[in-house]
């Protein structure tokens, strides 16, 4: 296991990048702790795969260094970095048996046969494929193959990091649960440093200790799922995490009050005068539809999504989403919304601004 350091790292696919726009990955400086599970989350084209390929050594960055446990591996080959990777589509050696597939990385490194046999047995038990060890990989289902890929990644005890590139793409929803849970328990048990690339917020949040949210080649926030949910550092994080995403409403800030079209909303902290585009962000989960006090809204539609309801309403001409409980009944008299003051964030030019400590 290793700590991963990204030092001044950036990458452009162009031979001589001119401006910042030419960089697929903009300058990064981060330390990723040993034994933690990280998820790189973002939409396609945000640079998350570029970053993963730099870490795995398939791509050499155009600037900066990458260190494993303080050793510079920027120019080391993939094999020398001692990492394991699970790909979007199951990569298995079709003509080999499941056993040989799992043993392959160990055999190539000249491990003792007895050790290999024991280790393969152990891994097969972990991924629940002991019964299939003697079968050829070709005839197996996509999720069984993906389990083999996963097992092959785990078989070496000394890997520096385990990388996952959207590994659940081809898996059925019900199986996704099983594989993800398995991955999570394996992480708890063995404490590998894991890096998981995905565009799916549920996968990212449920898998990772720390989620790295990427947007337009930049890391906009690294945080625990709870931090990302409660204190998105950028409006993009607010939008990208959560379904539906955070409501962002233009407002004027005066001390500990936000002013929206003449109506006031209480803030958790007080602010000095702010310049630029000022908005407040409130997650739909912290908005309550009421008959009494609050900002005036017009309910457009109510979507029953099972465990809760999503109310889509109109607030001073722009859309606002409200999450209501499964048992909450929505009546036509509900024409006001209130915000949970503890969960209102203030944004200036899309970046979160902390207030003065109370």
């Amino acid at each position, binding site marked *: 296991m290793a700590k991963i350091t990204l030092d001044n790292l950036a990458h452009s696919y162009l031979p001589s990048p001119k401006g910042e726009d030419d960089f697929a990955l903009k300058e990064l400086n981060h330390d990723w702790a040993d034994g933690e599970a990280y998820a790189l989350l973002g939409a396609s084209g945000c640079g998350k795969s570029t970053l993963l390929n730099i870490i795995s050594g398939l791509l050499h960055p155009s600037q900066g260094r990458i260190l494993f446990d303080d050793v510079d591996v920027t120019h080391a080959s993939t094999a020398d970095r001692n990492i394991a990777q699970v790909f979007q589509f199951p990569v298995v050696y079709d003509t080999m048996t499941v056993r040989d597939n799992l043993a392959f990385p160990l055999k190539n490194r000249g491990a003792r046969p007895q050790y290999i046999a024991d280790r393969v047995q152990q891994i097969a038990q972990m991924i629940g494929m002991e019964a299939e060890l003697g079968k050829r990989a070709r005839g197996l289902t996509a999720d069984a193959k993906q389990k083999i890929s996963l097992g092959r990644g785990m078989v070496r005890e000394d890997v520096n990091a385990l990388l996952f590139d959207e590994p659940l793409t081809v898996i059925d929803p019900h199986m996704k649960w099983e594989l993800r*849970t398995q991955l999570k328990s394996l992480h*708890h048990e063995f404490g590998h440093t894991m890096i998981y690339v995905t565009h799916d917020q549920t996968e990212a949040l449920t*898998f990772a200790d720390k989620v790295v949210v990427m947007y337009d080649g930049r890391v906009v926030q690294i945080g625990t*799922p709870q931090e990302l949910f409660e204190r998105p550092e950028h409006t993009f994080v607010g939008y990208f995490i959560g379904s539906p995403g955070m409501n962002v409403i233009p407002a004027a800030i005066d001390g500990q009050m936000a002013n929206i079209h003449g109506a006031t909303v209480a803030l958790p902290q007080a602010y000095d005068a702010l310049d630029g585009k000022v908005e407040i962000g409130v997650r739909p989960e912290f908005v309550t539809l009421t008959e009494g006090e609050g900002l005036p809204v017009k309910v457009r539609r109510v*979507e*029953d*999504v099972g465990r809760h309801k999503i109310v889509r309403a109109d607030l001073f001409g722009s859309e606002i989403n409200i999450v209501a409980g499964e048992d909450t009944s929505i009546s036509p008299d509900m024409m006001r919304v209130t915000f949970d003051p503890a969960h209102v964030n203030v944004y200036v030019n899309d970046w979160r601004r902390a207030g003065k400590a109370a």
Partner: protein
Amino acid sequence: MTLELRNVSKVIGGQTHIYPTDLTLNKGTMNVLLGPTLSGKTSLMRLMAGLDKPTTGQIFWQGQDVTGMRVQDRQVAMVYQQFINYPTMTVYDNIASPMRLLGKSRAEIDASVRKAADLMQLSPLLDRKPLELSGGQQQRCALARALVKDAGLVLLDEPLANLDYKLREELRVEIPKIFEEAGSIFVYATTEPEEALLLGGSTAALFEGRVTQFGPTPTVYRQPVDATTARVFSDPPMNFLRVSKTGSKIMFGDGQSAPAMGPMESLADGRYLAGFRPNHVEINAHANGAMAFETKLVVTELTGSETFVHLDHHGERWVGLVHGVHDLELGAALKVYLDPRHVYIFGEGGELVAPASYALAA
């Protein structure tokens, strides 16, 4: 406008892909086919479209038997999981192509194309080629083409499966709005329960070639007719517990018992299967008369505002989705609670014998 399947089945090479099915779909409705991979969603759609001929049964379109009619002669549009567009044509020509085949006038085509492009937010991209677009834009182009065809029946086979999560979320909101306006019969296949709920309309739950239930989406979700439907329409999967009833007591597998309450009160003595959804599992009892279960915590997953707890209840795996972020010790004992109002009771054959009482009230 109606599409009616009467006793339609499909057998290929001795293997039954679709068991005899009766289904009536009405004008201007959104109909979701919900089921796991290989449950028969695509097979059923192909029968509806006329791409395949049913082994038995008939298909009626507006009361007229169209069973043997070729797909070209029917009013059908289809959108697939893969983004299928004509690569050498511009977005405009792609959208216009079905109308040109119908020989519509230039002005009429232009008006429809612009309207569809507007709905799908493609207006600035009309002069581009499909391969210059992002995945979401390509799929919106395919959707627009299906829309302008003004077909009576529009079949969408997992159209959002290959798109990014967030984009999928946005289109899921858009699609029902657009379709309300169009007035055709829409059929939408998906593997994801959440997608079915967001789309609303009606849902047909499919499992291994059988339509297990068809009705308004929230009804199918809250009042499943059997354990199979409940399992198909639950993500994370529904939890199950074997119970037996003797007199006024409900006995659990581990020797625990609870007084029979609510819908369970009136049941005959015997063995049953109790089912409950993950979001109804609680780790702090707040309902009166909640049943308590001793479990072991296997894994937790945080979503930011909620926590998934994976539990081991005497060898059975349960999943719970509880509010708030909880820092719990893995491997430790955890007491979870369940409000009896949230429990469905199925017979040994899987049929629903007592619905969860909360669902009836809702």
